[in-house]
């Protein structure tokens, strides 16, 4: 019997990342549904509260951010669900590559195929709410900093709820309260721009939350996966 070829940790992470991206590309309907959800939710608000631009400008940042939060949670359920269903997840648990790194690679792939799309479409929504160029740019940047955080926090929730019935709603129930700081500083950055204030503080705080989350969230999610699959 020949020993299985070893790829090392970087190779394994690359393989997981590319595989998840490929799966996301081949399931465009699944990947796109969160994006469409995002656009629909944001577009419903003017219908609900009225089309006056003054009000839309004021609620715009918050609406886009809340919708991004909900869309991220909606997409989050799929992070581990498919791999759990076909047994891939168990192989990952058995792998010699640290599970937390595999989780990080999966989360990154997931963010590239969900969160990043939300970021890219956000200027369009900013136009709908008449936000102005400065605010639209800040909205894009705040989402760029914030959506990875949502994916990382969501990964913990997805790992805790993998394989449970009603996992989707439960995931939101667990994760949304924990994500409130991201919402506060993300939407706050745009509002600060609109008020003519600097955004450095908001971006610094988002970054300050992102860095420890990058380190801690994969560890917590890996521990949660071990609990879920024991």
């Amino acid at each position, binding site marked *: 019997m020949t020993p299985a070829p070893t790829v090392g940790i970087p190779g394994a992470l690359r393989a997981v990342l590319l595989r998840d991206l490929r799966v996301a590309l081949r399931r465009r309907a699944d990947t796109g549904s969160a994006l469409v959800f995002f656009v629909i939710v944001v577009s419903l608000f003017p219908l609900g509260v009225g089309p006056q631009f003054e009000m839309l400008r004021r609620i715009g940042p918050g609406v886009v951010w809340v919708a991004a939060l909900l869309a991220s949670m909606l997409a989050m359920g799929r992070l581990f669900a498919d791999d759990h269903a076909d047994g891939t997840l168990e192989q990952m648990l058995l792998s010699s590559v640290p599970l937390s790194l595999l989780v990080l690679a999966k989360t990154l792939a997931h963010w590239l195929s969900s969160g990043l799309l939300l970021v890219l479409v956000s200027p369009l929504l900013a136009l709908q709410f008449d936000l102005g160029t400065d605010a639209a740019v800040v909205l894009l940047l705040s989402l760029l900093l914030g959506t990875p955080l949502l994916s990382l926090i969501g990964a913990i929730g997805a790992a805790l709820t993998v394989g*449970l019935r*009603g996992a989707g709603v*439960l995931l939101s*129930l667990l994760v949304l*309260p*924990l994500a*409130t*700081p991201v919402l506060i500083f993300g939407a*706050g950055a745009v509002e600060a721009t609109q008020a003519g204030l600097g955004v450095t503080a908001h971006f610094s705080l988002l970054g300050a939350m992102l860095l420890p989350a990058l380190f801690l969230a994969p560890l917590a999610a890996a521990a949660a996966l071990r609990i879920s699959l*024991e």
Partner: protein
Amino acid sequence: MSWTRYAAPQNFYPLAGRAVPWFAGLALLLGVVGLYIGFFVAPTDHQQGESYRIIFVHVPAAWMSMIIYLAMAFWAAIGLVFNTRLASMLALALAPTGAWMTFLALWTGALWGKPTWGTWWVWDARLTSELILLFLYIGFMSLHAAIDDERRADRAAALLALVGVVNVPIIYFSVKWWNTLHQGASVSLTKAPSMATTMLTGMLVMALAFWMYSIAVVLARTRVIILEREPHARWARQALGAA
């Protein structure tokens, strides 16, 4: 014989059974004394009139809501690290009482807010973070309830409680800064530090009463959880038969 003997459910069960009446009795006694001080001894507030008297329920409930979350996370962590069944059961037993205290703090806060500020709810930093705390309790209990295997549920909920504990300060400060940014309906909750001694005494006695109540209820609930999980153990059948 060491104190770890009581980490075993069959030894803890009778111990808790003996302790519950004491704590319940103390809760009743302290509650009566505290309410008496609160209603008849403490003076009327010169600004808020009689309505401030809800403080004797509101503040102890708010304190307990936070302390119980810490206690819950502590026992959950012990259960997760040392794989002790009783610690996880304690964490599970603490959650409903903590959620109830959080709800009570919010509810009495609303009742207090209406006469003093003219509104049931203010998006103040403390109210908002208390509300999020309630959501965290509900998340803990929902996750535990959603998993059929008890041990797996214990461990998953414990991890969630730990993630929550790390997040609680972040949530609190972000809500606080958010609140100072939005100066809109700004009602300052910071009370005057000069509180009449009798008011403070009443509040502290009530806080002790809430402690005793929580301990009594949590111990009683832990006993029920123990019996639920070990219905076929001989000692449990004997306990059930005797009861």
